[in-house]
């Protein structure tokens, strides 16, 4: 291998112009691939983080209420016109046991039962349709750290208190310590209350800032007509991408309706997937064009080195040795381009982080560099295969006469 290595290095070094040009091409290719992968990864992580900043990873609901027709006798046929049932607000059965079960589950980081349902908020003559969220503040904050998003007052809920969204506060002209009337079932049902605003939050999601009112769990239960009941359990998992799998497992475990954030945001997920697919395609095509560049440069180099190959063969170089020499050149070009490309991608990422929109940071992790370098080297090796075979098969007699 010593001799093959020497030949490969010297051949590359002596074809300085060609080597330099193809190295630049490989460098650009590798840099583009690393940069675009890091960019898309950063962008996607940012989008997912922002989405999950206001959402639980997994939500558990009571199962849908369905009609249960009496079973058929043997051989009996029935024609049935079925009206799906309206889904009333209802509690998850046995939720305390479920909460304890989830608390003990190693794959769940946080468990937050909550009672939520629709209501009207009223101040003066203004009415707004809102969503009441009755929570256990300590547990809830482990899932969604809402205290970070308070823009006025504080995140304090207890009997008679409420924390409302900024847009709602705006619409109703609410300030901290103002009063707010909540009506969750018509004036004759007794499910109404006057609450005092202790805090105003802004999550940056219009829907939430306009509709959410956080209450103490017992108060929400009373208002929504669910004494002692809860409608939802919010869960947090360590690895967001395992949410789907854990959701499926919890569904099998409990028989309840379990929805992961991936299902809730299926549109986002397919957008991300399409993005990743186009990234892979771009990388693939860049790699292909780099490969053809390497192959063409080596093909030319073999024509230029026909005489040398002939002499080497006459001096006892085997076909395998000639094959190795040119394969090595391909791999070396790929590796050199990979190293330079990695450095360039760092510069690009630095430029983006320094001068870019600043929405998120591009992070280039070592694994990405290693795999990009491995792929570039492998691409060089594969691209060299066809020219190298030609070098190995070159007829030494013809090659020598070529002088």
């Amino acid at each position, binding site marked *: *291998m*010593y*001799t093959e290595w*020497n*030949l490969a290095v*010297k*051949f590359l*070094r*002596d074809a300085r112009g060609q080597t330099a040009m193809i190295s630049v091409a490989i460098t650009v290719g590798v840099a583009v691939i690393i940069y675009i992968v890091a960019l898309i990864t950063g962008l996607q992580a940012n989008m997912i983080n922002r989405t999950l900043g206001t959402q639980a990873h997994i939500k558990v609901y009571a199962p849908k209420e369905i009609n249960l027709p009496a079973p058929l006798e043997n051989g009996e046929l029935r024609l049935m016109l079925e009206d799906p049932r309206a889904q009333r607000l209802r509690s998850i059965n046995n939720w305390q046991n479920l909460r304890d079960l989830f608390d003990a589950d190693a794959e769940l980081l946080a468990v937050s039962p909550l009672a939520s349902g629709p209501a009207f908020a009223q101040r003066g003559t203004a009415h707004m349709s809102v969503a009441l969220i009755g929570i256990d503040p300590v547990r809830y904050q482990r899932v969604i750290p809402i205290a970070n998003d308070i823009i006025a007052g504080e995140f304090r809920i207890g009997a008679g208190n409420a924390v409302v969204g900024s847009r709602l506060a705006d619409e109703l002209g609410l300030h901290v310590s103002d009063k707010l009337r909540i009506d969750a079932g018509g004036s004759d049902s007794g499910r109404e209350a006057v609450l005092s605003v202790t805090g105003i939050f802004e999550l940056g999601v219009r829907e939430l800032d306009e509709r959410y009112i956080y209450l103490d769990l017992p108060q929400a239960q009373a208002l929504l007509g669910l004494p002692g009941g809860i409608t939802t359990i919010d869960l947090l998992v360590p690895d967001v991408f395992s949410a789907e799998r854990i959701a499926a497992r919890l569904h099998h475990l409990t028989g309840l309706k379990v929805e992961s954030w991936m299902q809730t945001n299926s549109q986002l997920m397919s957008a991300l997937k399409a993005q990743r697919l186009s990234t892979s395609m771009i990388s693939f095509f860049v790699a292909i064009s780099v490969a053809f560049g390497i192959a063409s440069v080596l093909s030319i180099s073999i024509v230029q080195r026909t*005489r*040398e190959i*002939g*002499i*080497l*063969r*006459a*001096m*006892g*170089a*085997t*076909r*395998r*040795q000639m094959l190795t020499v040119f394969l090595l050149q391909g791999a070396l070009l790929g590796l050199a381009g990979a190293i330079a490309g990695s450095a360039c991608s760092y510069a690009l990422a630095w430029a983006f982080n320094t001068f870019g929109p600043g929405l998120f940071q591009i992070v280039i992790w070592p694994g990405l560099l290693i795999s990009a370098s491995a792929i570039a080297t492998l691409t060089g090796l594969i691209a060299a295969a066809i020219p190298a075979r030609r070098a190995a098969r070159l007829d*030494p*007699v013809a090659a*020598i*006469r070529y*002088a």
Partner: protein
Amino acid sequence: MPEEVLHLARVHKSYNIGQPAQTEVLHGIDLHLARGDFAALIGPSGSGKSTLLNLIGLLDTPSAGEIHLLGRPTQTMNDTERTMHRACAIGFVFQFHHLINSFSVMENILMPLMLTRGKPKLQDTQLAYTLLAEVGLADHATRRPDELSGGQQQRVAVVRALITRPALLLADEPTGNLDTTSADSVFQLLRRFHQEFGCAVLLVTHDPRLSSACDRTIKIIDGHIVSDTSHIASGDNSH
């Protein structure tokens, strides 16, 4: 009794086999070379000298007939075996010096060893230096071949051909494009190393002065050996 290095029996060579342009270039060549031989191969242009040399050097395969090199039949060998056999039994010198300009003079000389054994050993380098000094180029060891004159390059090529101590040295018009003085010095080198290393030499040349200075002259015309004469030349050969 001199030991046999090369034995050719009824060797034919055709080009473009199976095509309309098929031509037989060598028509049943029989030839022996012994260890002490210093033979000239002469003949008009196109008579098949280079073709024969390439067959002997295992760079090409005959269409028919047998070639035994150092007692081993070569027609059943595959490409790798022929390459290995060539690497240890044969040294080549071509008309155009054919050095590799990417490597220094020293590296060029060691190349045949490096190809078969990898990194050169100290005694290999020492031998290369000794030989380079004998051809008067000791202080050119680290130069690039294209910085040397044609005659100097050809002397380097001779040293390179001998570094593996081959049993047979094949030289195809080694002095073909050199002036008389350089040609003479290269020829003297061949004679000297022939004696020093005890290898057989087969030398293609168009120069009657050189062929008459060899111990044996083989003449080939249109693919037939027409004469094979031994004559102890003026030279310093004591065999």
